[in-house]
Structures are given as C-alpha cells and as structure tokens.
C-alpha cells in the first residue's frame, strides 16, 4: 500500500495550496491531491483576464505562497512557480472519492447520515467512525494513505451526471470553456438553466462555425432560467440559429447519435457532442460520508469544526470555502495555520486576531480578545451553543458596542436587519411613539431587533440603553449563519420574535404574561408564492400574522377575483371571521414566498376578552377593512372597468416582484416622452454608469416596471457575496460597497436582472465644456467606445465590479431618476402605499 503520509491535502485551491506549501516548508511528509490537471480549479475557471481582488484589506496574509490583487493569469502563474519552488508533492488527476479510517473503531463515535429522497422521505444510516490512518480512495482506483487529512475542496462540487445508457462516452461533457473551439458539429445541450442556455447560444452565435445546435427541454417552459436568457434563446430559435426541442429527454447515447424520447415517440438524431448542464451537487454528501458532521440540515450549513479546524472525524481537518470562508486570503491563512496546528504549534494566534481585537478596543473593562469572546458567548443566551472558532467567525461579521444610560441604540422607522444581543446592562423599548416615557425593559442575556431581521422592514420602536450596556450587533448574515449552526438559537429567536410581534402589533399595554398562552400555541408556516392562506367562504377560525413576505387580499365579485388590498409583513389578517363568527369574506394568498404565524382563533378571542382596549383596536381595524371592501364593491357596479383595471394592474405589479420591494421605480407611460433623462441623470449621479434600463421590463396598462433595483425586503443578491459587499444602508437602500471582488454572484442571484458588471469610466469633461466647446460625450452614460478609449488613455485598468441602484444615497433630494423626469412619469414608490384603488385607477392626466 506504500507510504503513509503525515498529511494528505485534498484540493489545490488557495487553501490547499497554502497548506501544502507550509507542510513542504516544515518538511512534513505530504501529498497534495488535485482532481484536475492544474492547480486551483475555481480560480482557473474565472473569466480570462479577471482582476482578482485581495480582500479584506486589513487582514494580513500569512502564507508561504504570495498573493496580492492582480490578473488571474499572473496569480496562477506565480502559484505554479512557487509550488514548484517549494517542492510540493502534487498529484494531479487525483480525485478523492472516499476517505475511510483504517484504525480501530472509535467507541461511541457514530455518524448519522440522513438522506432525503426527491419525494421528501428520509432515510437514516449509521456509520461507525474508525481511527486514522485514513485511506483515501481515488477515482482512478489508487489509494493514498495519510495520518491526517485536510479537506480543501471548495464548494463547487461535481456536476450532476447524465444517467441514460451511453452517458459515460467521452463525447458527453459537463463544461464548455470556449464555444469558439467547436466547428461543423452537431451539438446537443441538455439542461435549460442559465448555464445550458448560455452555452447553446454561444455555440450557435457565429454562423461561420456551422454548428447544428439543439437544446433539450423536458417540458415547454424554462422555469429555472432568467427571463432575459429565455427571451434571447427563443429569438435564436425563431431566427433559425438553433433549435429548442421541447418535451424531449435523452433515451440513449451512442457515438455519432443520440436517441430522444419525445411526445411523438423516439427520435434518433446525429450528435457529435453532448454538453450536459444539469446543475451540480454540492460536495456535502461526499463530506458526510467521510464521517464529518454538519452543524444542521440547513442547505447553507457548514461542517462542525474545532478551534483548530478539526472536524468530527478525528484527524480530518476542513478549511477554505468548504469551512465557510470564501475569500482567498482567509483560505490561504487557514492553510498555513492548520499545518501549524497539526505540527503541534498550539500557541499560534489566528491571523484575524487584530481585526477582532479592534472590535473590542472601545469597550470599557480590560479584557483580552479571548475573554471578550467568552464574555459574549456566555452572557448572550442565543450564543451559548457556539464553540470558540464559531465565535471568532461570528465576530468578524458582528460588532460589540457600549451605550451609556438613555443613549439611543436605534430609532423607530430606521432601516436595519441586524439583531442585537444584550451582554450586560439592559435596554428600554419605547412602545408608544406618542409618549416616549412608556417603555418596556429587555434584560441582559436577551435579544432585540429580531423583527427587522425576520421581516426586512424598518424598526418598529426606538430602543435606548437603560443603564451602562454592552450589546453585540449581529449582522443579518451572521444571524442567519448562527441560526443554521445552532438550532437552539433558531428556536429561541423564533419564540421571542413571535412574542414581541404580538406585543408590538396589539400594543395597548399588553404584557408578556398576557400573550404567553398564545405564543405557546402559535405555529410558523411557510407559504409559497400564490399559496392561499385563507379561502373566501371557508369557515376555519385562525388568525395570521405575516412574519415575512407579503399577502394580497382578493374577493370574487361576479365570478372574477377582485384585488382588495396588499398586506405587508407585520400585518395580521383573518380576525374578522374569528370576531364575528362569520365565514371568510375574502381570500388571502401569498404575493411572494412568505412566512406566517398561525394563531388559534380561540386564543385570540380569549386575549381580546381580557383586554377591552385591544378589542376596541381590533374592531376599529376591522371596520377600516370593511369600509375599503365596501368601497371597491360599490365601485364595481358603477365603474366595472375601473375595478377590473385596478385588479389587473395590481396583479401585474405583484407578478413583477413588487410584493417584495421596498422602493421601486415605476414609469407611467401615459406621461413618458422617452427622453431617457432619467437614465442620463442616473449615470451622471453615479460615476458615469446608469443603473437603470428604462425601456426594458414589463408594461401593463401603460404602467411600466423598468429594469432597476427594487430594494427587496430580503435581497436575493446578498445571498452569496464572498466579501459581504452588499448591505442595506441608512435610508433602506441596498447597495454594494467598494470591497466587491467582481465575482458576479449577485448578478446571477438577482431575479430581476438589475445588476451589471462594469468598470468605472474616467471622468468626463464638464457640462460647460460640452455645451460651449462640444468636448466630451455630453450628459448621460458615455458610449462604450468612448469609455474604452478614455480608460486606455487614463492608463490604470479598472476592475469590473457589480453596480446597481443605491437610491442615490447621500445625494440631496433623493433619487435623481425621479427628479430628472420632466413630465412626472417616473416615480419611486413603496408597494404598500401604491397598491391602492385610487393610486392605480385615478387618471394621471
């Protein structure tokens, strides 16, 4: 079986490379296993010439390999050189398929493997862990033995494979690097997501390549792809550039041919190459098979690790993106550190120590970083379940703050999606905006701010420190991570948030004891977009609170559903039927994916009974709703057309993502003269690049939703940004800061296609110079050619970064697009204010 290495490092990304170089420098016996035939495949696959960025700037690099911001090619070249220079033992084409302990069974160490089938059923399998040395089985059948294993395989995973007969033939491929490479071929693309569509279009783009390209679609729609991509694909199909084969699946593959099952039976067509883009499986299953436990079943969860990166399988370490650190610098530092730990260096302080120390510098009380972390962990109850490594990582995305007595922590109506934990002291919540002297205390150990975190909406009350208070402000991202890592924290946040939501909504002097029974009985339910929560005419009797997302209320009037109103997160509904015992008078359904809290009707009634003031408030709300419904119903008879228009326009807006917007640009095309002054003003207010495309986007009844950021309550774009460059600003705007590394994840994640990747152009000559002497390109975004030329003259090449609307934050007067519209066609509105009868039906002219 050959040599038993001290360490085997799997994966040669920045994390693995750095570990291998350190091992080589220390003279440890080691091997670096890499699946492909080159180092660092993730970076290798970046777009040619990509400017790789070295963030965070304040983190020192601790590695035997160099890294600084620069072109992809330069960095990869340097790494190749240095890895050779360090005499690192690299084994290419070495894909690890399984890792097994070959020592004795470790008593009591059993890994439970949960597999979920497509139909939702679960099966559980137990794996007995065995002690090192580990046998690493490679795809080519070889086995590598090692005492310690470092997993640094990143998060790319493996592409999903085709399963039909012939799927393992060499002309079936899962990637397309350069579409220009193929000529005169019959090519079949399998998969109708964005990747498949882009590949198909790329191959058919240039008629001179004479490729016959077809793309298979199991159904007739393209639900997983971006709208713009689908449209472009359809256009290519129309134009005869390529062929979309709908309702077709592969039955079998043979050299030169592919057989499809179609609606009209089997079809055998010539085919020289198959490109399958059917998604990729995250590496989690493989990792779990190695005996490594994840922190939860959540899809975003990471492996459970000790402070020295050791997983639940003794001797297997996990670092890099797979461990939850997606930035190159972090990866490289961890590669260095993990080898030091394995080599017995227990004194080593993590490289991010100074960053974390700085976070505690301004707090009173002389504590070391470790003591502060422990102080927060033990005092804030939701942090109790974390280990020291998790605390460190957690702290990178969080802030510790000190507030003196009656200092404001946040104010009512301020935007904010962070969560606060009270480590010492206490705070007072001003529950009544009219009278700040009425407050409710929240004690040390507890949390606040959870409503903003969950609903994405503005703060509901002003909160001040009641005494000297130390809080930890947990960013939305860190809070989400925390909830996926520590299930008890998730449960605690959920319980507190329900309680607070009840107290806040029903106000009027309720106490925690009053709602305790209701909180106990409450259930949180998730609703798909369009799912009906309450059906008109039904006689169920529960009350609902919208926890996140939004709902629309409809009523069937003469067969057709009529839109009655829009309910944002934080509203409640379903109380009418409970209070007066009637059948449901209207249908309530989710406008977007939402979460509701279901409260049993009796519990709600009991609460009303005990609280006359609350009862009065509920009756008043109810009367208001009744009045709106009656108003619209009465209109139905006299102006049926207006009510239909209203319903249809409201539905159109909801279909176009307005249900999750906080601030959205709309254009009334009864007023828009097409002068594009809005776009020009946008470009001139933001580094010369416009962040809105006026013409693109959908239109209904002359109301146009242009391609421009909606500042979503829960921004999809934030989901997967390695440097966390996307944030919500003080005025509620979602913006991207300068730490963006240009990876393009946000562009892919935004369902509305509003993010563009571009380099800041140099400054234009002034308006005066243009008006008097015609110098420069004039107002608005300069043409691509002008920008390219000016940038070339300017010298320093600028990196492409993600740019999007920032709601003109910091600009006096607010959004320039709206201010620059000469006719009043452009407006930016919030859905809960705009989706009303008068706003949607009143003629603007």
């Amino acid at each position, binding site marked *: 079986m050959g040599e038993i290495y001290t360490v085997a490092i799997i994966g040669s990304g920045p994390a693995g490379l750095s570990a291998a170089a350190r091992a080589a420098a220390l003279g440890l016996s080691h091997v670096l296993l890499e699946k492909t035939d080159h180092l660092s495949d993730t970076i290798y696959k970046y777009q040619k010439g990509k400017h790789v960025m070295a963030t965070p700037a304040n983190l020192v690099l601790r590695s035997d390999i160099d890294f600084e911001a620069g072109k992809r090619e330069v960095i990869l070249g340097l790494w190749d050189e240095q890895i050779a220079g360090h005499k690192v033992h690299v084994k290419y084409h070495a894909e690890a398929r399984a890792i097994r302990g070959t020592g004795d069974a470790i008593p009591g160490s059993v890994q439970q493997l949960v597999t979920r089938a497509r139909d939702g059923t679960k099966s559980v399998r137990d794996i007995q862990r065995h002690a090192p040395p580990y046998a690493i089985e490679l795809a080519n059948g070889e086995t590598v033995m090692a005492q310690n294993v470092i997993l640094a395989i990143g998060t790319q995973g493996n592409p999903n494979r085709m399963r039909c007969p012939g799927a393992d033939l060499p002309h079936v491929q899962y990637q397309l690097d350069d579409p220009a490479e193929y000529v005169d071929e019959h090519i079949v693309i399998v998969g109708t997501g964005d990747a498949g569509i882009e590949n198909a279009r790329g191959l058919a783009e240039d008629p001179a390549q004479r490729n016959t390209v077809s793309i298979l679609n199991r159904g007739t729609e393209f639900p997983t792809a971006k709208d713009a991509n689908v449209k472009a694909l359809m256009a290519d199909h129309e134009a005869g550039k390529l062929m979309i084969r709908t309702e077709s699946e592969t039955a079998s593959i043979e050299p030169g041919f592919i057989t499809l099952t179609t609606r009209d039976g089997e079809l055998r067509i010539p085919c020289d190459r198959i490109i399958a883009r059917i998604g990729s499986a995250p590496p989690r299953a493989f990792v779990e098979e190695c005996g490594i436990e994840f922190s939860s079943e959540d899809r975003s969860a990471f492996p459970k690790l000790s402070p020295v990166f050791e997983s639940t399988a003794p001797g297997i370490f996990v670092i890099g993106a797979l461990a939850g650190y997606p930035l190159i610098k972090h990866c490289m530092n961890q590669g260095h550190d993990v080898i030091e730990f394995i080599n017995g260096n227990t004194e080593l302080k993590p490289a991010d120590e100074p960053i974390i120390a700085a976070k505690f510098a301004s707090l009173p009380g002389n504590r070391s970083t470790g003591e502060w972390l422990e102080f927060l962990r033990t005092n804030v109850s939701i942090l109790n379940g974390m280990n020291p490594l998790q605390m460190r990582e957690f702290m990178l995305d969080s802030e510790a703050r000190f507030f003196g007595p009656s200092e404001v922590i946040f*104010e009512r109506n301020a935007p904010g999606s962070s969560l606060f934990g009270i480590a010492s002291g206490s705070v007072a919540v001003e529950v009544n905006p009219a009278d700040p002297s009425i407050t409710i205390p929240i004690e040390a150990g507890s949390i606040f701010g959870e409503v903003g975190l969950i609903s994405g909406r503005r703060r509901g009350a002003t909160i001040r420190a009641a005494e000297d208070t130390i809080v930890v402000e947990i960013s939305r991202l860190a809070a989400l991570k925390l909830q996926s890592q520590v299930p008890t924290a998730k449960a605690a946040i959920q319980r507190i948030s329900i309680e607070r939501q009840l107290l806040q909504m029903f106000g009027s002097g309720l106490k925690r004891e009053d709602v305790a029974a209701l909180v106990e009985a409450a259930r949180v339910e998730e609703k798909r977009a369009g799912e009906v929560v309450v059906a008109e005419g039904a006689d169920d009797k529960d009350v609902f609170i919208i926890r996140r997302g939004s709902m629309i209320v409809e009523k069937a009037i003469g067969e057709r559903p009529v839109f009655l109103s829009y309910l944002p997160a934080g509203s409640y509904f379903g109380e009418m039927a409970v209070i007066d015992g009637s059948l449901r008078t209207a249908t309530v359904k989710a406008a977007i994916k939402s979460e509701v809290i279901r409260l049993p009707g009796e519990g709600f009634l009991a609460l009303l009974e005990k609280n006359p003031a609350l009862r009065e408030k509920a009756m008043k709300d109810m009367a208001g709703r009744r009045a709106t419904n009656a108003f619209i119903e009465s209109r139905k008879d006299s102006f049926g057309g207006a009510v239909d228009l209203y319903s249809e326009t409201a539905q159109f807006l909801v279909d176009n993502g307005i249900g999750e917007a906080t601030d959205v640009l709309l254009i009334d095309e009864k007023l828009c003269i097409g002068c594009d002054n809005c776009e020009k003003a946008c470009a001139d207010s933001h580094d010369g690049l416009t962040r809105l495309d006026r013409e693109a986007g959908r239109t209904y009844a002359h109301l146009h939703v242009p391609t421009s950021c909606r500042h979503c309550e829960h921004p999809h774009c934030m989901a997967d940004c390695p440097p966390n460059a996307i944030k919500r600003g003080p005025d509620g705007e979602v913006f991207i800061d300068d730490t963006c590394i240009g990876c393009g994840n946000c562009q892919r994640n935004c369902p509305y296609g509003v993010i563009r990747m571009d380099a800041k152009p140099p400054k234009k000559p002034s308006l005066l110079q243009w008006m008097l002497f015609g110098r420069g390109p004039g107002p608005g975004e300069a043409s691509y050619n002008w920008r390219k030329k000016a940038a070339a003259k300017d010298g320093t090449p600028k990196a492409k970064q993600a740019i999007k609307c920032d709601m003109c934050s910091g600009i006096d007067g607010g959004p320039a697009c709206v201010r620059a519209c000469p006719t009043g066609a452009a407006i930016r509105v919030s859905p809960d204010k705009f989706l009303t009868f008068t706003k949607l039906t009143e003629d603007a002219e």
Partner: protein
Amino acid sequence: MMATKAAQTKGGTGRFTQDEKRRDSDHVSFLKHRGFRWLWIALALSAASIAGYVLIDQEPRPNGGTWYGYTLGTIGFGLILWLSLLGVRKRRINPGAWSLKAWTSAHVYLGLSLAVVGTLHTGFQMGWNVHTLAYVLMLLVIVTGIYGVVVYATLPASLSSNRKEMTRAQMLDALTAIDRQLESAAQPLGRAEADLVIAALAQDVFYGGPLARLTGRYPGCATSRALKRMGGNSEETARVGSLLERRRDQLAQIRGALRIRAMLEIWLFIHIPLTIALIAALTAHVISVFYYW
C-alpha cells in the same frame, strides 16, 4: 455602524420623511403639478400686468419707454433668461434637491404669461426693427412651446402602445432575425422575385427623409414593393410572402416609434435655436435702447 448612523440621520425632516413622501407620491403630470400652482402664479402675473397697463397713466403713451414699460421689460427679460436656463437644468441634476418636473411646470406657465408681459411691454408699437424682431422671436418660441406641451400631453400613450414592451434594440434584433430567415427562404426563388427580396433587405432600416419620418409614409419602401409584386403561388413564394409581411409589420413598428419620437422632439429643434436667436436679439434690443433712447 448600522444602528448608530441610522440614529443620527433620523428625525422629522431627514431623508426618511422626504423618502416617505416620495414613496407615497402619485403619478401627477407636470401640468397638474402641485394643484396647478404655477398656472395660478402665471395667471396672477398676467392679471397684474394687464391691470397695471389699464390703470396706470403712462405718459406720453404706453410703450417700453415709460417707467411701467421698463418694469414690464425687466420682468420679461428676467423671465426669458430664467426660461432659457431650463436647458442647463435639464442636463445638470446635481447638486440641489429640485425636480425637473417642477421646473417644467413653472417654465410652461410662466412662459405663457410672458406673451402677456411682453406684448404689454411693446405698448402695441411695431416696426421693422430689432425690437420687433425680438418680440416676434419670443412669440415663435412660445408657439413652439405650446406645440411641445400638446404633444407631451397626447403622444406618450401611443408611444407606449406602439412599443409593445419591446426596446428599440429588440425591435432591430427582431428585424434582423426576420431578415436572416428571408435570406434563406429566398434562395429557391426565381431571379425577379429574388431581386425584390434582395432590394428589400438591402434598404437601410432608417431609410427615408425627415418628411417620411414625421408622416410615417415611405413611398419608396422596398419591402412594400416586394410584397405587392411578389407573384407566383408556390410554397416557396408563400413562405417568402409571409416573411415579407412580418418584415413589413416589424418595420411599421420601428417607423411608428420613429414617427412619434420625431413629433415629440422636432419642436425642440426650433424652440432651442430660436431661444438663442431671441437672446441675441434681446441683447441688441437692450443695448440699442440704452444707447439711443
């Protein structure tokens, strides 16, 4: 960071209040801006000027030379300079918390009241001189402005309906797509028919002079010609025929967009140069008045 910054900027008159007002806004046109605020101001200005003209005893007779005439002249001159500044305002959105819609609203109504102020300033004395030239230029600018307001108020809806959710680039792409199909579909055709298709394809999308653009009539359109003359009833010619129809419809959409936009913009090509001429004439008028009067 997050919390503290928010706390500082909040308060009754901060950006939040401003934003909330905006988010609650209605789509009200520049004409109706703030309940016709500038219309009322303009009417008041006109009424006051007329009242003054009628009531004040101007010696020897009402004209630009009396103190009242000077007053009207100064107001008019000031107004004209201010009205011209719209051209700069439109292109320079920062700094300042103002809206172009409010400016346009004020521009339109105050510009109209200028007709009253200016006319009274002349005291109805005309002649073949630089003074009357300035007056006529002013009237022309105003008349073109009125045309502008009329098209701004009436055409946008048809621009939107014509567009059918397509951008200009998409319209051109759609045409290119049809053309590519036409090209291959025309291969089997006979010489005469093929030539018709080739002529249609060769013609520039933007063919046609300003008149064609404004009227939407393109008598020399090679696509219509090809459609008219396309003979034969084979499968091939039928296919080419239907593609030509699609091409004609696509062209009609593009030309419709061009036509409406031309009508929305053409007046500015008079309004702006005349404004410049007006300012020149006005300068001459003012200088000559101070020299010779």
